[in-house]
């Protein structure tokens, strides 16, 4: 907000305006900002999930997620998040970006499941381990989304690229742009996948160190 007003007023300073002109530039910038703010209200629609998720949490949704994963013999936090990374990247690449997300998937399901898997794997876990798992769960959702969605041709960033190039007089096909997002998507899967593969080991050795200290 401050940055916006400074930008607007500075633009007027550069143009060499007097005091009244600066005031007008400030007011104009405020109006411009207000209009953009109003145009961008759609961010808030996501919050409609909160009452439902809150209600289900009240009935033990997170506890149930932990119990479910606790029964799966092979489950560990790292392996579970690796499976989620695959699903998140694949569904995003098909344009199904709203299948994941922090309020609707990570908090109620993915994070509690990963915690449950770690408890199954290691017994009691420390708060530090718990928060690390939660951070990694959120990170995995973001990384899966970012490096999956650009493969889908109708996603915002591809539309932005095609529109921008068209304004600059260069015609490209959306499909051609999204095709070149694939090498990065594969690399991201390998890099984050390897990190998740070793995540259980990292957690275990952190737990041992924590116990000795």
């Amino acid at each position, binding site marked *: 907000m401050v940055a*916006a007003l400074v*930008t607007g007023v500075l633009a007027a300073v550069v143009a060499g305006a007097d005091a009244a002109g600066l005031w007008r530039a400030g007011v104009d910038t*405020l*109006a411009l900002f*207000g*209009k*953009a*703010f*109003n145009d*961008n*209200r759609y961010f*808030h*629609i*996501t*919050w*409609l*999930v*909160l*009452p*439902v998720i*809150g*209600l289900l949490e*009240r*009935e*033990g*949704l*997170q*506890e*149930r997620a932990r*119990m479910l994963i606790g029964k799966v013999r092979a489950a560990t936090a790292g392996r579970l998040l690796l499976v989620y990374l695959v699903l998140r990247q694949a569904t995003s690449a098909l344009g199904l970006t*709203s299948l*994941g997300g922090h*309020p*609707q998937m990570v*908090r109620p399901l993915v994070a509690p499941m990963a915690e449950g898997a770690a408890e199954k794997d290691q017994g009691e876990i420390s708060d530090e381990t718990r*928060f*690390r798992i*939660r*951070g*990694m*769960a*959120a*990170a995995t959702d973001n*990384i899966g989304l*970012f490096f999956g969605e650009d493969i889908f041709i109708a996603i*915002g*960033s*591809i539309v932005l*690229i095609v529109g*921008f190039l068209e304004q*600059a007089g*260069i015609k*490209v096909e959306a499909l*051609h*742009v999204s095709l*070149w997002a694939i*090498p*990065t998507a594969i*690399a991201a899967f390998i*890099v984050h996948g390897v990190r998740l593969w070793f995540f259980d080991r990292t957690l275990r050795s952190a737990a041992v160190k924590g116990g000795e200290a």
Partner: protein
Amino acid sequence: MITLDHAYVLVGLMILAFAVLTALDRSHPTRVRNTLFWGLVAVSMLFGAKLGGLGNGVLVLALVAIGATGKMGVAKPATTGPEERVERAERRGNALFLPALIIPVVAVGGTLAAKYTDAGKWLIGPTQTTLIALGLGCLIAFFAAVAWLRPPVSAPAQEGRRLMDSIGWAALLPQMLASLGAVFLASDVGGVVGQAVTSVIPLTTPLLAVIAYCVGMALFTIVMGNAFAAFPVMTAAIGLPLVVHQFGGDPAIVCAIGMLAGFCGTLLTPMAANFNVVPANLLDLPDRNAAFNGVIRAQAPTAAVMLLVNIVLMYALAFRF
């Protein structure tokens, strides 16, 4: 037809309910501040289109003022305790997942229906289709959950308020940053940044230009919190004039990988609030207010490697195809 305006009214009424309950909540640590804050957000959702540019600008100033006067507290309405939750989870079984799963299923199904069927086109408006379908999914899941669980009447709003308070100020950041991007675009900040960069660093080889473009995308995204805002600026400054026109890079490849280099920056910054701050709040991380919180720390190694990978990929691919 269901349009964005209907969704805004629904969100507005929900947040208004949060504000009213906060006003009635004597135990709330920052009762007046939170009531005013969510009240103003509700006004923006319900009447924003009628306020005009300047009116909305003043409303944002008021929101900033409230946020700047001090921390916003979190409500602790009566809810179930840990033991009670375990007991209920055992009783309800895996059916507890069903209402939560209704949301993405309706969101995806609705989006596809609106794109490919006539009935869908008739039902759901053409702009921000996915978000409208998501809102619809929430509504259906909500009624399903209420019909099945039969909670106390005030419970949905109280539970929702508890979660909304834990997100707090961060709920507004994405909207603020998008608006800031609009101001930057109108004042041609991009042109100024581009001139500054090229005058400081002599970008004489394709590799240097690629590095400057990718690193610039990541850095500017860290500052702006949004790769979409950084993209027009950095591409107009370095990507098009140098990598594409001077050194002959393929524009589709340069732009596709350049955008992904920007995403590496998104993973590293608290300015990307909806990806990095909202989840830290939602997951109750102890360092959620730190600039380098647990979510960003978990992402940083992947983001750093991926920035390098994007540079290598752009250099290897853009001048060959």
